[in-house]
């Protein structure tokens, strides 16, 4: 990628300057206590690091990612490949071709994500924006789930499985029960919440009771949820009558999120749920005692325990809530856009949610914006693929490069020669830590 291209002399300097940036690492490793819970300490440090990178860095990361994507787009373009054959004879041909390829792709992406001026009517012109909101809805919800767990320094890689279980529960209520309009919708949403909460609660419980690492358990539960759903879709209770495909019946109209802008648009009330969830997570983390405990446990479990907090219970509760949020993302899928259950109901939202949470720096409003951005990339990617033939996989590349760079602020600073924050400060004295170690 971009890092090896940088001249070496810059690197050690910025690496050194990054040390005061994340003071949690050094002393944490030195302390005798660090041995007992190595992962807890480090995760806290990382979350701190994610939180302390500035918005400017996020923007620059996006820029670099788009450049990387542009390079790939140009490489794959047929005209660029032709022109590169006689690059030394007429270099401007290739440059023009590169510019055209990249511009066309990104313009198509913008048209597909925000506003399409070529559309015949105003309604059609703004449709891409609503499409972005629709795609962003499950990303935001699942991203909130991942972000909330991050704040308690838990890695919830299991959003995928939680989405699947949420969608399964919601769908079952949705196509099996016959209820009056409002009640049915609320019950189905609640069922989705519970389904996700159960699937999130399992790793939380195992972490609290046995110390089983949530990363491993959640990854495994993703697959278990997938196969469980695949199995259910072959049973009489779930499979659509008369169909030999593993798909469920359509949800009752009473159990489907109402469309917000009428039948011409896919945008559904799930987006309001996502907004409400964002406010809820903000309230939970910034205004409630429970959220304070989560953050305390995330920042330093030992200190939280010493202060009388029940660390195990916090782990469990945070995973239950995180799972519930991801379960809501499942309802957005099954009750909003798809309206029936398939094995691929969760697509890759659970994994995208991790990148959303990281880009949003685990803050509720950040997650909302990050979800909208990735929703725009997704929605735009579809249009881009249709119009210019650039595969939508480019979105994955852009997404992952953004997150990698966001997670490594020193790298972005090196690329753009930015001054490190706190460079003027005297380096943190290192003497006390070794001294303590000698005593111990």
């Amino acid at each position: 990628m971009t890092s090896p291209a940088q001249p070496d002399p810059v690197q050690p300097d910025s690496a050194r300057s990054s040390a005061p940036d994340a003071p949690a690492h050094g002393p944490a490793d030195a302390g005798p206590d660090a041995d007992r819970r190595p992962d807890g300490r480090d995760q806290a440090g990382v979350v701190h690091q994610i939180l302390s990178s500035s918005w400017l860095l996020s923007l620059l990361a996006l820029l670099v990612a788009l450049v990387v994507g542009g390079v790939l787009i140009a490489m794959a373009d047929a005209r660029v490949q032709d022109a590169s054959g006689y690059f030394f004879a007429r270099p401007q041909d290739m440059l023009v071709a590169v510019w055209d390829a990249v511009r066309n792709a990104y313009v198509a992406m913008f048209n597909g994500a925000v506003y399409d001026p070529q559309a015949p009517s105003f309604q059609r012109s703004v449709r891409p924006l609503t499409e972005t909101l629709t795609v962003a809805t499950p990303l935001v919800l699942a991203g909130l789930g991942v972000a909330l767990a991050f704040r308690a320094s838990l890695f919830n890689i299991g959003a995928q499985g939680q989405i699947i279980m949420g969608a399964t529960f919601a769908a079952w209520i949705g196509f099996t029960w016959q209820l009056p309009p409002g009640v049915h919708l609320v019950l189905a949403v609640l069922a989705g919440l519970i389904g996700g909460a159960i699937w999130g609660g399992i790793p939380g419980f195992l972490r609290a009771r046995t110390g089983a690492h949530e990363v491993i358990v959640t990854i495994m539960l993703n697959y278990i949820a997938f196969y469980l759903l695949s199995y259910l879709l072959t049973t009489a209770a779930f499979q659509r009558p008369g169909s030999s495909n593993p798909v469920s019946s359509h949800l009752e109209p009473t159990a489907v999120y109402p469309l917000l802008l009428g039948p011409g648009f896919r945008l559904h009330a799930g987006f309001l749920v996502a907004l409400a969830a964002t406010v809820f997570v903000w309230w939970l983390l910034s205004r409630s005692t429970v959220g304070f405990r989560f953050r305390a446990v995330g920042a330093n479990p030992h200190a939280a325990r010493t202060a009388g907090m029940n660390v195990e219970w916090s782990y469990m509760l945070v995973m239950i809530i995180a799972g519930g949020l991801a379960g809501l993302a499942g309802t957005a899928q099954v009750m909003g856009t798809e309206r029936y259950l398939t094995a691929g109901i969760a697509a890759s939202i659970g994994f995208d949610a991790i990148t959303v949470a990281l880009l949003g720096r685990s803050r509720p409003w950040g997650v909302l914006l990050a979800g909208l951005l990735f929703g725009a990339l997704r929605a735009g990617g579809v249009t881009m693929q249709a119009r210019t033939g650039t595969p939508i996989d480019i979105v994955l590349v852009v997404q992952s490069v953004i997150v990698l760079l966001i997670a490594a602020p020193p790298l972005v600073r090196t690329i753009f020669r930015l001054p490190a924050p706190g460079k003027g400060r005297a380096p943190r004295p290192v003497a006390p830590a070794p001294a303590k170690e000698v005593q111990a």
Partner: protein
Amino acid sequence: MSVAAPPQLGTGPGASPAASDRAPTSWKGPLTYGLLGTLALVVFAVLGRPGTSTFSVATPGDLFHISPVGVPSRLTALVLSLLCLGLAALAAVRTRQGRPTPGWVPGTFAAAFVLAFLSWAVAGESIPFTGLLQGTLFLAVPLVFGAISGLMCERTGVINIAIEGQLLAGAFLAAVAATLSGNVYVGLVAAPVAGLAVGLLLAIFTITYGVNQIIVGVVLNVLVIGLTGFLYSTVLATDAANWNQPPGLRRIAIPLLSDIPVIGPVVFNQNLIVYLMYATVVAANVALFRSRWGLRVRAVGEHPRAADTVGIKVNLTRYKNVLLGGAIAGLGGAFFTIGAGLAFGREMTAGKGYIALAAMIFGRWSPKGALAAALLFGFAEQLRISLGIVGTGIPSQFMLMTPYLVTIFAVAGLVGRVRPPAANGTHYSKA
């Protein structure tokens, strides 16, 4: 990872001191054995299905022809489940005496349980036993490479979630390089390079920049899926003849050894990657637990500061091992394309990297264990395929779930606690 137990320095997996250190005698082992044994007795024997289970062991071109073995289904299941219960009793007695259960018990128990299950599942049908073994090995090969890649990294304290990406990158570059050069061995060399490149990214971000290892691993997987998917759609799929028609590796029969009935053709008539796998397992096991290098590597993974104090370069060791691990996983990735004689397909590793991670954990961070776990997981998947043909009442999805369930049980300590290297997942800086 472990909440209660403080890390014990230098105890390798399976090392005996670990057992005696383990706080009060745990009854989980005997209990689990007892429960599973009773389950086998009730389901496979008492409620068993009548008929004969036939296991055909013949392969074409065998030196000796062995006629298919038919056994009465219920009786066999009864004998085997009683054996299971006997082992459970043995474990209970040993636990009561406060002595550790002998090391051969889990393996024997698993074998007896699986055979009891097989004789129940195949009742009234026939199943090709050699094919079962062949398929098991075939499915296990990438898992073994992936798991050893994972443990190479984790033994130095770097979590490698990017196994999936390394496998996929290896599969991709192996196919492309082999097609472009027309030489399958160029692909075989290119695959580790691709894995190494992913490993290098992992190392730069985690070791140099101190980014959380799990985050980098997850994101690298997405990156590799995106990159290979993009190149697949733009280049490989549009011009397959020039880019994506790799030649396959030939099978090499080892003289004499490959003539052993049943085992011979399965184990000793394979392609080069499989032989490299055997070599990797042996080499990794010896190097990690019997060499100075291995001691240093494990020291870095258990207590980096102590290792640093005695002069081991912690981050250099980590860099080397992460790169080595990446290369090993990349080589395993080659098995998907040139090893199986297939063209590259989008996301063709299909989550195998995560099963490899599970195999590493289930194998308790040792190459031997990883091999056994990978074979077990490969067996579970092959069983699904074989029984799918035979047609038993068990939904195939549940058999696919087995590796993941087993892993959760393993990390949750229901079947003996597995303990990762103590410094796993921590960033190390001297300051």
